[in-house]
């Protein structure tokens, strides 16, 4: 394949693809953190995850139009989405916590459609984009270029991931959340208000998505229908990393990013998405075979 030949002849291009993949994957990993949190603690697969990202993006866009620099807009969007998450928990999500997965998927699917269409009505279908004003780095006579905003995204993913890890491990609320995730009934017996923990978890997820949305608006663009991409990809990353494996999320996110970019270069961009879905299937089959041995021991 001639594209593969080009890569072998000029390995520097592979470096560009790897760097780009890691940086792009990190933004998806950010959304996946939230997905993993909600799934791990509340056993809810949030189909509206991408729409929360979209809303965060619009908040940062309108703040920018009002004169607030997007880098300041991102924490404001996170705070606003935290409040939105609390409200959404109160209205819908708290009814889903003890139900089976089908009900929660159905309900969050409904929320996602509602948010999409509301956004389309209120904001219009036009593509909105923001400029971060950050410089773009360029090496080796332009062969490697890194958008400054993508580095910010990567840094944000690392910071949020680290903060989340420390929060869950070392703060009281974090430990309470983990206790609730392990065994909700036991946690309640020990005096933890599990509903408040669930609300905090969901609101935290929305805040993370809001911040990610701001990064997405600065790196690419925002429009009412961009949600599905992020929902699907964050779902994939969580499945690949394994529920409860937070450090695995950023590895999986960046890993998928690198593989996607390379596949796009070698095979053509029409195969990019198909390639990583195929990888996910192989990963799951492989994991199943690996665990089969352990299951036999347990029997």
């Amino acid at each position, binding site marked *: 394949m001639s594209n593969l030949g080009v890569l072998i002849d000029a390995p520097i291009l592979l470096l560009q693809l790897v760097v780009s993949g890691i940086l*792009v994957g990190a933004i998806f990993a950010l959304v996946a953190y939230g997905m993993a949190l909600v799934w791990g603690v509340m056993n809810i697969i949030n189909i509206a995850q991408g729409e929360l990202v979209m809303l965060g993006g619009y908040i940062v866009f309108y703040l920018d139009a009002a004169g607030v620099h997007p880098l300041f807009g991102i924490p404001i969007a996170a705070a606003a989405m935290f409040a939105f998450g609390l409200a959404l928990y109160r209205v819908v999500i708290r009814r889903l916590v003890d139900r089976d997965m089908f009900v929660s998927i159905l309900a969050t699917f409904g929320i996602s459609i509602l948010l999409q269409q509301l956004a389309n009505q209120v904001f219009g279908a036009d*593509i909105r984009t923001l400029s971060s004003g950050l410089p773009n780095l360029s090496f080796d006579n332009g062969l490697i270029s890194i958008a400054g905003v993508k580095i910010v995204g990567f840094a944000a993913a690392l910071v949020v991931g680290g903060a989340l890890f420390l929060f869950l491990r070392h703060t009281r609320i974090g430990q309470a959340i983990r206790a609730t995730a392990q065994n909700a009934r036991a946690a309640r017996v020990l005096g933890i208000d599990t509903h408040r923990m669930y609300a905090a978890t969901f609101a935290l997820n929305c805040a993370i998505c809001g911040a990610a949305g701001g990064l997405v608006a600065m790196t690419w663009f925002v429009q009412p229908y961009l949600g599905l991409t992020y929902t699907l990809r964050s779902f994939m990353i969580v499945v690949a990393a394994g529920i409860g494996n937070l450090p695995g999320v950023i590895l999986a996110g960046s890993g998928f990013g690198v593989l996607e970019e390379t596949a796009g270069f070698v095979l*053509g*961009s029409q195969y990019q998405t198909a390639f990583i879905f195929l990888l996910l299937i192989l990963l799951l089959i492989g994991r199943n075979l690996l665990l089969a041995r352990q299951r036999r021991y347990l029997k």
Partner: protein
Amino acid sequence: MNFARSLLAATLGTALFAMTPMPAAALTGDTIVLGAAVSLTGKYSTNGKNTKDGYDLAVKVINDKGGIKLGNKQYKLKVVYYDDESTSARGAQLVERLIAQDHVDFVLGPYSSALTKAIAPITEKYKMPMVEGNGADRGLFKHGYKYMFAVLNTSDYYLREAVNILAEQAKKAGRDPKSVKIAIAIENDDFSQDVRDGIVEDAKKYGMQVVIDDKLPAELNDMTATLTKVKALKPDALMISGHEKGAVLGIRQVAEQKVYVPMLALTHCDSAQITEKFGADADYAFCGSQWDVSMTYTDPWFGNSKNYADMFKKAYNYDPPYQAAESTASVEVFADALRRAGSVDKEKVRDALAKTDLMTFYGPVKFDQTGKNIAKSMVMYQVQHEHYVVVAPSKWAEGKPIYPAPTWDKREASEKVSQK
């Protein structure tokens, strides 16, 4: 519990009933009624509004200038609208309603090839003449429809002119056109695939090579893999088609990653507002368009394109994109055909439409037997100093193409100079 349930059922039932669209009575007497299902909500809503505004302005101006004379009587035009919600199934349903229940006299097309494809079988079934201005897909004209007429150029024409410019410029520089390399990146939808087919066909005509032929899936938001390939293979032109998203991504990421190509050609530049969003980064991009405000075609209702644009801006407070202009032209075509047919009889009007030979501010209109407009040519413009300058067709063009585009170092240097 039982009461609550039946109350819920009653509420749901009423809500469902209330959501069905209200039938509009088709007016008789002195009014000719045109029916249109356009996208007022959903992903096409922006261009759907452009379409509706185009139709409305045409009807207003034609009525103000006396309407249409059939026999001894003056008739006014009126358009009845439904919202197709950017969904093909809904569009088809609503057009059937317009024809079978509301008894409209004629039908105006929706926005987008997808929706036009959905309603064309319906207008054909009822032998209802339809003029459309927003469905450019070539596939529409392969079914032998007799009642569908399109004023716009088919989608494969959007970037053919860019290939011609490449060939011209190669010859001028003393290069064999066969040595020209083209990279194509499209979003994998019907319209963009047609644009790609047009490029590939013309490239083959000149013997040019297509070195990259990427079809980005719809959920993809990053073109880095394709652009890295472009950096590696150094083509003479990169042609991107992906509606507004393709234009936004293309300009942004090409500038971000400092990808150098002598020609960058796109579709949907104006509706993506690339000059407003990206300023000088959008310079030197070539854009395909159905119409431009500087075209000097004229007609008795609107004068020339500049007059049309002024009228439109006054009425709706924004500059008309080509989607509005081609919608207005569709109504003009009906008005002209009705006058020649002398009646509202559908067969007579259909035959009159088939014989159309009309000049409008939007361009000349003449249909071949498949309903395509074969008289108009596509416009190609280039962004020069953040302004759109028409560079093709050369007969009506006011500007000359700048090719090859200056390299990024030179662009940054000249920006620094101009900032001093």
